[in-house]
């Protein structure tokens, strides 16, 4: 830099000398030209000096200090989110279904919104609550507290859960029923409300996982004590068993049960469920009778192939003091396969299900065949056709198709 900045000085000095010597000799015009050249050179020199100064100033200690402070502030703020003791989170799902069948008019048949709220305090407590807001036939909105539990994490292998929860028996209700997870628009026959599979329970649960040597194989368990179901008795028959969590226990007898699942291979879960206790009719709390549940389930997945199956039965004993003295049994099973044709987002699903209840009129055998399009892991469109076989003339016998859009968030 020094060497090159000398050059303009040399030119400058030479020009001055030349001007002094020959002032008389040269015309004014020449003098002006030279003067403007000198001015230019002076300007350029000033610019170079300014630039040098600016460069020196660009980074000084105060700036670095400022910047550091700022970075510390910003990163502390971004950590705030991660390290807060209390967290609030909104999850859930929503779906819209269109149904058309043999003896029914095509209609938008279901519009549902199920928000789930999570509040977590450290790794100690979580509150989970799901609401189900569903549009009814007449345009009103039904709402339902699907579940509300307070979960206390006791240690790495145990959480205590109090409140209303999805039934810990079997796998469809607790693991697969949300519409963005279920590969078909409908629940398998017998797995709906007041059918063979219990839906929910109010009580106390102990849940957790126990490693089976290493991290990949483990046992998960859910053991509970709850209020248990109630029987709906019409005339001299048990119309239905209402296995939904309620905040009353007319028969004053608790139900105990649970499920144990074994993850023997990471791709395969096998589960066994059972429960036992007493149950009574809605209007006859003293006519208690035995109540037993048994279930077995499996879930297997390999790449985009998913196989699932499940059997569940609920049995109540006979009771002479009841208006409906006879014993009764509800049972259902299904087997399902779904396969996504990777790398496309198209998926095929097929399910066979069989529901058997004390009332022949509600029994159903069903083949369901569906095609799904997965927009993402949590959003899909499903089109399915159900081939139903039930008592002639019953609604359960009508074949039909459903189109459903489901989004989980």
């Amino acid at each position, binding site marked *: 830099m020094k060497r090159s900045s000398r050059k303009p000085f040399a030119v400058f000095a030479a020009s001055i000398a030349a001007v002094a010597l020959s002032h008389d000799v040269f015309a004014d015009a020449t003098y002006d030209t030279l003067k403007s050249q000198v001015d230019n050179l002076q300007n350029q020199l000033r610019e170079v000096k300014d630039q040098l100064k600016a460069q020196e100033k660009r980074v000084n200690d105060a700036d*670095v200090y400022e910047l550091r402070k700022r970075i510390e502030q910003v990163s502390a703020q971004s950590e705030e989110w991660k390290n807060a003791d209390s967290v609030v989170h909104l*999850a859930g799902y929503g779906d819209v279904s269109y149904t058309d069948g043999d003896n029914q008019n095509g209609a938008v048949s279901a519009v549902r919104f199920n928000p789930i709220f999570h*509040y977590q305090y450290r790794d100690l407590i979580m509150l*989970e609550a799901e609401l189900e807001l569903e549009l009814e036939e007449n345009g009103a909105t039904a709402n339902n507290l699907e579940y509300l539990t307070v979960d206390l994490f006791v*240690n790495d292998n145990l959480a205590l859960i109090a409140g209303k929860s999805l039934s810990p028996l079997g796998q469809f209700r607790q693991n697969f029923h949300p519409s963005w997870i279920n590969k078909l628009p409908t629940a398998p026959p017998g797995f709906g409300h007041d059918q063979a599979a219990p839906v929910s329970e109010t009580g106390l649960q102990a849940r957790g*996982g126990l490693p089976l040597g290493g991290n990949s194989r483990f046992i998960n368990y859910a053991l509970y004590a709850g209020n248990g179901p109630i029987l709906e008795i019409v005339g001299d028959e048990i119309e239905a068993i209402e296995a939904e969590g309620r905040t009353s226990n007319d028969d004053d007898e608790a139900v105990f049960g649970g499920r144990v699942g074994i993850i023997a291979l990471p791709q395969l879960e096998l589960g066994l469920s059972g429960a036992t206790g007493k149950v009574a009719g809605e209007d006859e709390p003293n006519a208690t009778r035995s109540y037993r549940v048994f279930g077995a389930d499996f879930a297997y997945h390999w790449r985009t192939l998913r196989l699932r199956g499940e059997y569940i039965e609920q049995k109540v004993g006979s009771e002479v003091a009841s208006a409906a003295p006879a014993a009764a049994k509800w049972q259902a099973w299904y087997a399902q396969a779904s396969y996504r044709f990777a790398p496309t987002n198209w998926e095929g699903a097929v399910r066979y299900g069989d529901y058997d209840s004390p009332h022949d009129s509600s029994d159903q055998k069903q083949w369901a065949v569906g095609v799904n399009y997965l927009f993402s892991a949590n959003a899909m469109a499903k089109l399915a056709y159900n081939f139903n076989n039930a008592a002639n003339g019953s609604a359960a016998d009508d074949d039909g198709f459903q189109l459903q859009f489901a989004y989980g968030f």
Partner: protein
Amino acid sequence: MNRVMASTRTFNFFPALYLGLSVTAVLATTPVDAENSDILARGAKSWSENCARCHEMRDPMEFRDDLWRPIVTHMRVRAGLTGLQQREILAFLQSANNRMPEPRGNVTDSGVPTRSTAATDLSGAEIYQQTCVACHGQDGTGAVPGAPDLTAADGPLAQDDGILLRHITEGFKTPGSPMAMPPKGGNPALGGADIQRVLGYLREKFGAASQ
């Protein structure tokens, strides 16, 4: 500490409750060191083994770090995972969002920190086994939805090093793909030299030359 947890295996309710409550107090204050790549590797494995059991695999980059926390807690309860699995999976999911490495150490005389490419001293094969295998599988054909077949002749490895290095370092997602490749496979501890080595390993093990 985890040994203490595991020893409460037998389900003896009240002793378990008592011990549990006292241990939980300690546990709740022990953050997982997300920089520990062992935890990340175990977390990635545990995530790939458990998080596609009931529903489609959710993309590790789908949620912010603070949102993954209640989600993984929710899933621990739902799936009966252990607390250890929960912490490891959470550490992995949170690290999968880190696009930039943390600025580390090295400050020059002028007080200006330089971006160092802190590298591990692991070989390409070791890095693959620790960080990549959970998603890409032992044989490179992919173990989770969306992971491409690296052994296919016209597969990803047919591309230039430049593209692959960028995709591995910054992460990327093909439109319509069910899942993104997380930056550095979700392990922010990997430096530029590590990525070079693991790419070398991919080419040697799964590339056209190996067939």
